[in-house]
């Protein structure tokens, strides 16, 4: 098989710059997991249906399995490893732990980043808005009730802070 020519790119991931060579067909997910060893980003379906590979590109949730690495050069990429600062859990992570929104944990990184992006855009979403926002993320363990509760607890805080 003929090797495809790689391109030199610089990716900004969790506020750090990485100089990489990536073939044009290489996905952001592959680069994050295999080159940068940021294995918190998970692959579950590989076809953009389950949301497990969700990362943030300029604070917007995207499916890294359907995103080409060369297409996000110069953008600000956040993975689950970049959410907590200085050893403390980010409030979204904290809420997921406190509300038992995590069971097996495989969907959790993607789910947490989707929740983070939702709350950033809309600090006090209704339950309906929460459910819609996370319906691109499949969780097979929880039935979503505790995930919705966790996000709601932050939404209620958002409401109080306004």
């Amino acid at each position: 098989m003929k090797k495809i020519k790689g391109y030199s790119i610089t990716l900004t991931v969790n506020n750090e710059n990485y100089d990489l060579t990536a073939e044009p067909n290489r996905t952001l997910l592959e680069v994050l997991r295999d080159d940068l060893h940021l294995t918190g980003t998970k692959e579950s379906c590989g076809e953009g249906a389950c949301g497990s590979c969700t990362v943030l590109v300029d604070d917007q949730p995207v499916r890294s399995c359907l995103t080409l690495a060369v297409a996000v050069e110069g953008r600000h990429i956040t993975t689950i490893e970049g959410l907590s600062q200085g050893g403390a859990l980010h409030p979204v992570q904290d809420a997921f732990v406190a509300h038992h929104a995590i069971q097996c944990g495989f969907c959790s990184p993607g789910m947490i980043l989707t929740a983070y992006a939702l709350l950033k855009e809309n600090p006090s979403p209704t339950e309906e808005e929460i459910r819609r926002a996370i319906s691109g993320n499949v969780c097979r363990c929880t039935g979503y009730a505790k995930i919705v509760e966790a996000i709601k607890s932050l939404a209620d805080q958002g409401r109080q802070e306004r």
Partner: protein
Amino acid sequence: MKKFDLIGKDMKRVDTASKATGEALFSGDLILPRMLVGKVLRSPYPHARIISIDTSKAEKLPGVKAVITAKDMSGDKWGVFKYTQDQQFLPTEKVRYVGEEVAAVAAVDEDTALEALSLIDVQYEPLPAVFTVDDALAPNAPLIHDVYPSNINIHVKIDVGDVEKGFSESFLVREDTFTAPEDSYFQGEPYAVAAQFDNAGNLEIWMPNAGPHLKAKPLSNVLKIPLNKVRVRKITIGGAFGGRSEIAPADVICAFLARKAKRPVKIIYTREENTVATRQAHAMVTTIKTGVDKEGHVVARDITCRMDGGAYSSTGPIAVSVPFLCMEQAYRMENIRYNGYRILTNKPIRGMFRTHGRAFACGVDTQLDMLGAELGIDPLTMRLRNARQTGDYTPTKSFVASCGMTETIIRTGEQSGWKEKFGKLPPFHGIGIGTNSVQTGFPMGIRGGSQAFIKLNEDGGITVITGIVDNGQGNDNMIVQIAAEELGISPDDVQLISADTEVTPSDPGSYSMCETFIGGNAVRLAAQDVKMKLFKIAAGEFGVGEDELTARDRKIFVTSNPEKSMNIAKAVRIALSRNESISGEGSYWPNVDAKREWVKNPYGQLSETFSFGTVIVEVKVDPETGQVEVIEAWAAQDVGYALNPKVIEGQFEGGFAMGGQGGMLSEFHQWHEGRVLNPTHLGYMVPLAIDMPKINNIIVETIDPNGPYGAKEAGMSVAMSAAQAYSGAISNAIGVYLKDFPLTPDIILKAIEGKGKREQ
């Protein structure tokens, strides 16, 4: 004084912070030095003779480090039971389903591995194949295995009382047939295995599993190395749901590739491979004949169930039995006959599934509703009249030590407003109820019991060593919670070494709902063993009896005079300086009948205790589209005692979603000649957040006499009841009883249409 510090409280799970940050490593995340990518070549035919396999071109491809076929293995056949040994990890003579493993490669990267697969030349002679139970049973059907005449893999026959006499004495008898196609696990984590050998021939292997010891023994057998050289390591596991308990061809293939290449190898399954080549749930056809008296009590029941088992035995004897056993636990009956068959077809292999048997349980419950309707008795009352009670024996002779079935029915009924709603809701608006019961373990031979060790450090901290595995349900936390409670220390003082076959003792694994009851008891006993040793030292220091002491807040003190106290750390230091053992050991062997066997002798104590559950749902059906909107749900289970109520709620909610919302509305596989047409998330519809109704959790506690703190298991009876509640509610809404599941919009529309025609 409060009874417990940690038990019974909403304790934050010890494992979830690392899952929230992405730190937790799953098998597919492992990166080892010089690790190769493993890939599997699969059969394109549902049934074919293997004429030849030529791997020479693949072996010559630069970057390929190992290629294996059946020739690299002994050809031994494996099975969960002696009488089901029918599967080679790489087949020598025949392939039996589309997707069966034929050969495998390990290469420096994925592209090279995939190219190598394309260079392997396999010559097949296609054979006639069977894809349905009826075709497999037809007189001249091709045999899938020579050892199973008529393709009948397993036949479980149970006959208790006098069924014919019971029918003749019944006031009303009905016979109905219920069907459902295959459903699937869709664990978040696709199956993945990483394996490496060291110079001394020790295997280290990581994979999602529902019991590391269940994986280690067959690996030892097939690799011909002793058990102490098989190190199944602990790793975070992305769901099991009844699967992942048995050895998988991927485990064996990965180990053989690593041994041949002399380098670590990792295989990560695609979503499609996870669906096709791990396990699926059985399709089934269940015919149920039930006789009741005027008051609706079941007098006699005769059930024949035929399950489509796919190409190999897997956990067949268990799978054929469990839906029946759940039913006989849930409901009282004296005359009962069961003929359960597992039929082999040229389709992927079927195993145990969390919500196994929707065409069985929904059949039993739908028919109960139908009988009740003819008698003028509502479904809830029908269940109350037939509910299992504490102190009963099941028909197959299991003693029921604790049973809150009636309470689950009454409380879901009260909270849902059943009396005000049933029969009084507007058209296309309905309410339904389902009940069921599950085991807390089965007779599992020498793997039936669990053992635990506890080591103390001189600072008062401990390390718990146990074979208990956590698939995501929270077992790790359960272990820490119990050990910390018993010793009066903080969960932060507890380190856990679990699910690692090099160091942790034997344990049955998580898949029979037994980890709390059996594993939890073993951990508790180990902690009590340590506590007694500490108390002996403290008693000597204080000049009191050991029974006068309490351990709490990292201290041991005289219960009547808490001023008299010493830190646990001090007691440990005294023990060390006196050369006294301070480690603890605990083991628990459940009270089950070792002579009970799934096929040969299906009588005797099956499990030491059972959980019981009820689910009620209220739905609206759109008569134009057949779409179901679930308005609200009520889920109750007798869990024995709630060790960590939030964890239990999570199990109720997850089980409800999988069994009810997914299992009864949208989840099923479609086929074309043995090929799964919807193996991925795009075609197989698992529930999303927007689909789910409000779920009201009702925890019922009966304090089991032998469970740890009275606990049994944490939510499987809800998972196994939810589908029935959905089907009952939809039937109630549209005024037609439905017998073919899941209840997709087309089935519902057809039923509404049929009813309209009949009424004209």
